[in-house]
């Protein structure tokens, strides 16, 4: 009984290990350092978005504008990142700031208008896509400085820079959720918004905070992506929000709010990465990959709802 409960608690982690074991038997390339470096580097952009949206989902909200924010911030950063123009700090700052601004916009509209986050961020998603096309006049922004391209393509002590960013941001996000006032309030707002307000929590402030963080991290993801592909693409990031939300949900964050962890989300991100990678190694076409991914998302949520039923 005890063992089963334990396994259920770490359900998705166990699934992750099992899939890794299977893949390492099928494909000898799977369990190599170079392959895992690829998996994690590729997963880093989804990870940043997923961490941000985890905060949002725990409050009971959703952020559909992630992908568009990636495009806007990427294009913004790219336009300021041509060689011999500005120091590299400027495009980075501009990318982060434009993301933050869009996040603040989301938070502001959601808290002031009382329109559900789904609709508000759906609107922002379309606005963002338009903005990215306007800023770039519909063309990719290329010819970026080497120092800017280092962010997505460089290495420190042999470790790809995106992996370092991933570890750093994961640590900060996890710490924020577990150890800070904001983290506790995020759970409270998602767990019972009315009670949170009655307990003296400024619910609007908490919501503003999570959408702003989500925007800021989308900005970072936009910079990372632009730097990796060395171009600011106005069409970049389409559908990224769904992968990020999927990772959070696979990792045990309930879309009804109040529960979820950053570690869970990280496992969700890696699971998606590993499956994509494994299917690549097995030469499965991307069409089938999508079908498999969908099945896994539904499977994860079913597992989670069983879990909750057995708990109550």
């Amino acid at each position, binding site marked *: 009984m005890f063992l089963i409960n334990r396994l259920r608690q770490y359900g998705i982690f166990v699934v992750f290990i099992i899939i890794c074991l299977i893949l390492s038997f099928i494909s000898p390339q799977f369990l190599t350092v170079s392959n895992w470096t690829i998996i994690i580097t590729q997963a880093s952009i989804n990870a940043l978005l997923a961490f941000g949206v985890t905060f949002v989902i725990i409050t009971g909200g959703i952020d559909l504008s992630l992908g568009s924010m990636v495009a806007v911030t990427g294009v913004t950063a790219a336009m300021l990142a041509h060689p011999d123009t500005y120091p590299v700090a400027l495009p980075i700052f501009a990318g982060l700031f434009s993301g933050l601004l869009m996040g603040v916009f989301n938070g502001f509209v959601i808290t002031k208008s009382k329109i559900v986050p789904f609709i508000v961020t759906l609107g922002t998603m379309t606005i963002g896509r338009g903005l990215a096309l306007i800023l770039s006049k519909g063309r990719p922004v290329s010819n970026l400085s080497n120092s800017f391209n280092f962010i997505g393509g460089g290495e420190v002590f042999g470790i790809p820079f995106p992996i370092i960013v991933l570890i750093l941001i994961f640590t900060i996000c996890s710490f924020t959720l577990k150890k800070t*006032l904001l983290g506790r309030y995020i759970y409270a707002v998602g*767990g*019972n918004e009315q009670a949170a*307000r009655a307990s*003296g929590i400024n619910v609007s402030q908490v919501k503003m905070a999570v959408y702003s963080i989500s925007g800021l991290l989308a900005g970072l993801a936009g910079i990372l992506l632009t730097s990796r592909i060395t171009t600011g693409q106005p069409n970049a990031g389409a559908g990224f929000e769904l992968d990020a939300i999927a990772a959070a949900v696979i990792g045990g964050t309930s879309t009804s709010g109040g529960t979820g962890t950053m570690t869970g989300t990280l496992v969700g991100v890696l699971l998606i990465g590993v499956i994509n990678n494994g299917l690549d190694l097995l030469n499965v076409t991307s069409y089938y990959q999508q079908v498999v991914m969908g099945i896994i998302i539904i499977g994860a949520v079913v597992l989670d709802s069983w879990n909750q039923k057995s708990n109550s």
Partner: protein
Amino acid sequence: MNESPILQVQNLSKSFLGVKALDNIQFDLQKGEVHALMGENGAGKSTFMKILMGLLAPDSGEIIFERKILKSNSVHENLLKGISMIHQEILVVPELTVAQNIFLGREANYRNWLNDKIINQNAQELLDLIGVKINAQTKIKNLSIAQMQMVEIAKAVSTNAKIIIMDEPTSALSDLEVGMLFKIINDLKTKGVAIIYISHKMDEIFKITDRITVFRDGKYIDTKYTNELDKNALIALMVGREIGNLFPEKVNYKGEKKAIISIKNFSKKGKFENINFEVHAGEVLGIAGLMGAGRTEIARAIYGLDKYDSGEITLKGNKININSPKEAIEKGIGYVSEDRKALGFIPAMSINQNISLSSLANYSKAWFVNSTNEQEATTQLSNDLKIKSTGINQKVMNLSGGNQQKVVIGKVLLTSPCLVILDEPTCGIDIGAKFEIYKLINQLTDRGIAVIMISSELLEILGMSDRVLVLSKGKQTALLTKKEVTQEKIMQYAVE
């Protein structure tokens, strides 16, 4: 009552994960009787009801309904046979009409097409029959909670129910509406319908029921005629021991009895008008009145949950203006809501996290929570309040109602308030836990905290208050001292 009973339950048992929820239960029900089922929370009442309804299958034992063994695990099937239940939480579809609700799921009786004409007519006849003045074509969302309850009863009657189970049917009703309900129950009785009546309210039990069966810890204790018992004897059966006093001895506060809060000309349009009172250190001010008298609305306005139109609040000599619960807490006001589930706690959070929720900033440096200090404080409080749990990390959703209430009170206490507003503090809590809540209230006043206690239970108001404010339709009709106050006086001013 020499006829064979309409329902007879023999040796019924049911376990969940090895824990016996029901252990060899006996029960019988005669035609045309109102039979109370009593027991503290966790006594097994709801499991028993679920089995009767067909929601759960028993592990062993027999249910004999109209001389036949009832073997079914479908609610629908039991409904057709004539066992119907009116739930504590009203289950109606707000966007449909009264008639559509009454015949919901049985529309096919009127050919294959929805025919609102026929069901409207039938529903109206039904409502008239049981003496309820509601138009069958009104949408449910436009009804009061009491009226919705009447619709539920009409629905039960329309299924030709032979047994109606009523679970806390009066929890949302005013006294007048309770009277209406009792009239309907008496009508049903004369028609031979048997009613199983579950309620925490003693007065009602003695007024309306013929017999009383008591469960305790999943076991059958006894069945008695209502007129053989009195309140104390019944309580003794329920808790398994004599309770000498319903209320703990109160020690009068010895400190200076200065005014903590004073409310002047407090008004909010359509809710309450020109309210004036003071509460002193160490004093309990009871607020009595019927449903809709404006009691909760006043509390919510003081606490900053709602806005008010005009008036003055003075706290410890300073005029204050409160716009949110956050500001109220900072100024030293605590509020325990009547709606514990909606406003009281975060179910998925632990006892520790719930208790510290309102004062977490005090246990943090900059943005970081100091969990050692936090847990020290909440552990201490959890012990003081005698919260029964597996530890402070247990989730609050897994606690009993009484312990949940203690967690909410703990949360308020940790903010070191000078005024605590308790809105129906013992609502839905069993007798043993009630006594502990009362002791807690005395501990508050002992420390010089001013307490405002809103309650619909007159006994509680009489037993706990130093003074009683009576409201009627949003207006203040009396402010009675401990010496003046009686049940009759309160009722008289409450309906004024």
